[in-house]
């Protein structure tokens, strides 16, 4: 069975299980209402379609599995973590600090190695955007709790 598992099948199984779990939550929670007033009526139809299509995709993936692609794991992992942390801390630590950190990690993950260029872009681009939005467009970006001018 494990030999049949390929990346495509795993994604399809994950989708199937997600759909099935969501579908299960639509049963038994609300009283017996007419369709028009039942909040789960429409999503239930959609989730049944979701589960059915995911099942068909699992069958297709097992039949015509594609070889796993080279994942470039560290590069993608670093970038995904950087994106999520950037989104989480954007409003908490402010635009400038988070953007400098994100740009540095992102440029390194995307293969840049020239320190001066990375530093210039990672500091310069957020600084320009900060001036553009805060001073010219008067649309303040989230400020840092540590440095009021950033």
């Amino acid at each position, binding site marked *: 069975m494990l030999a049949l598992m390929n990346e*495509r099948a795993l994604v399809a199984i994950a989708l199937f299980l997600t759909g099935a779990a969501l579908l299960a939550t639509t049963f038994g929670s609300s009283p017996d209402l007419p369709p028009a*007033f039942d*909040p789960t009526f429409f999503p239930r139809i959609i989730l049944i379609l979701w589960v059915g299509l995911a099942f068909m995709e699992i069958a297709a993936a097992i039949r015509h599995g594609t070889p796993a692609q080279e994942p470039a794991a560290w590069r993608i992992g670093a970038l995904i973590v950087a*994106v*999520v942390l950037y989104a989480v801390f954007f409003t908490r630590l402010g635009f400038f600090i988070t953007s400098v950190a994100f740009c540095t990690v992102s440029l390194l993950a995307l293969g840049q190695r020239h320190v001066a260029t990375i530093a210039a872009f990672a500091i310069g*681009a957020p600084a320009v955007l900060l001036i553009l939005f805060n001073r010219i467009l008067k649309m303040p970006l989230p400020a840092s709790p540590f440095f009021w001018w950033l």
Partner: protein
Amino acid sequence: MLELLPQALGLIFTLEGVAVLILGTMLGIILGALPGIGSTVAVAIILPFTLGMGQIPAILLVLAIYAGSVYGGSISAILINTPGTPQSAATCLDGYPMSQRGEAGLALGWATLASVAGGIVSAIMLILAAPQVAAFALNFGPIETFALILLGLTCIVSVSEGSMIKGLLAGVIGIFLSSVGGDPITGEGRFTFGLFNLIAGLDLLAVVIGVFALSEVLLRASRRIDGAALLVAFEGIVLPKLRAWKGRLGGLAKSIAIGCGVGVLPGTGAATAAFISYAEARRSSPRRDDFGKGEPDGIIASESANNAVTGGALVPTMALGIPGDAITAVMLATLTLHGVTPGVRLMTSNPTLIAAIFTGFALINLILLPLGMLVSRLAAPLLRMREAFLMTAIAVFCVIGVYFVRGNPFDLLVMAVAGVIGFILRRQGYPMAPLVIGMVLGPTLEMSLRQGLIITNGSFTAFFTGHPIAVALMIVALVLLSLPALRALRQRSRLRTE
């Protein structure tokens, strides 16, 4: 309305009015071209600046940003395969392959001319027929709207490249995502799992930017490539030669008609029009086999329709006070801020203002051609940036853009998660366009279905009696759905006979 034209032109052609038209359109194109910013954010960004202006210049500025950014969205869609808004997603399908072939300038030339044509025709249509069209739109009840949305959903079949199952699954996921949050009728929370932030639902723009732009950054990072390998060559817009239009004008006219028609109907929007038009062009074009590989007919269909919507969407916004899409909803706020109360009476109580707005809109679409050619050249340095810098800048713009829509930190998280999921799905060949179509059409589909069931006392069969428009639309949807299967059958039988 034509008799009011001199007065309308007098209101527009002031120093402030002309400056606003030119600078607003240029700014709109630039903002629309920036990945992750898009029309809604562009209009929202500019909204506070209009408060110190007069009524007409303020409304013209917002209109210029609106029309300019809708066109500008095609620049990023064609050059870096990253649509800023859902309406330019269909443009990626053929625009980017053309860019990869080294025809980025020509692709933008097709997009520019199609956009200008769509915008101008829709503006003329507005000036001549706005009151009548608004009256016809009133005939659309929930059942007719439900049938129309079903028709819109048939385009998922067309945009499902490679695997129909994957495309349909992505579309279904999109419709489901649109149902997360408060139930539109009872207000009860659905699939919120105790998270207060999910009560308001998932922000469309956050999901769209995540699955298109952020996932693109991740996808490019996953390919071991050198800095500028995937950047396309672009030296400015190249307008297609006159003879290249041969055999394409019919498609252009059809796409503009679709754009105007869909735009007028409340709650549908430019993304719907672009995908319906693209699907129709893909079905009817003699060059349909080249769709998805860089066929200009695909760009014409998408760009002419989404720009034609800009005019059409103004009809329900101005005449009924119902926004045609998210952008016109922001515009509605602008109008209200400037003392214009949109509604049925506006056309009769203040016809000069309406004439000035519509005439200004037509002028904006006229100057879109020279300004588009000028501004797109300014965008060229963006393309010469090494991919690592461009992708990093795109990610930063995505975060800024999503932050400015609602200022909600939760939306940023939604965008990040959508980006990661989009990346995983795209690696396995799931198209993202159906997901966005599902998310755009989902709420209207559900609302119209349930309202229809209320009207008919829960009877589905009543949907088919006494609603000739709905029946006609459903028949068309059914025919369009069965066409690919019929075509495949015909092809198979032809192969057998050969």
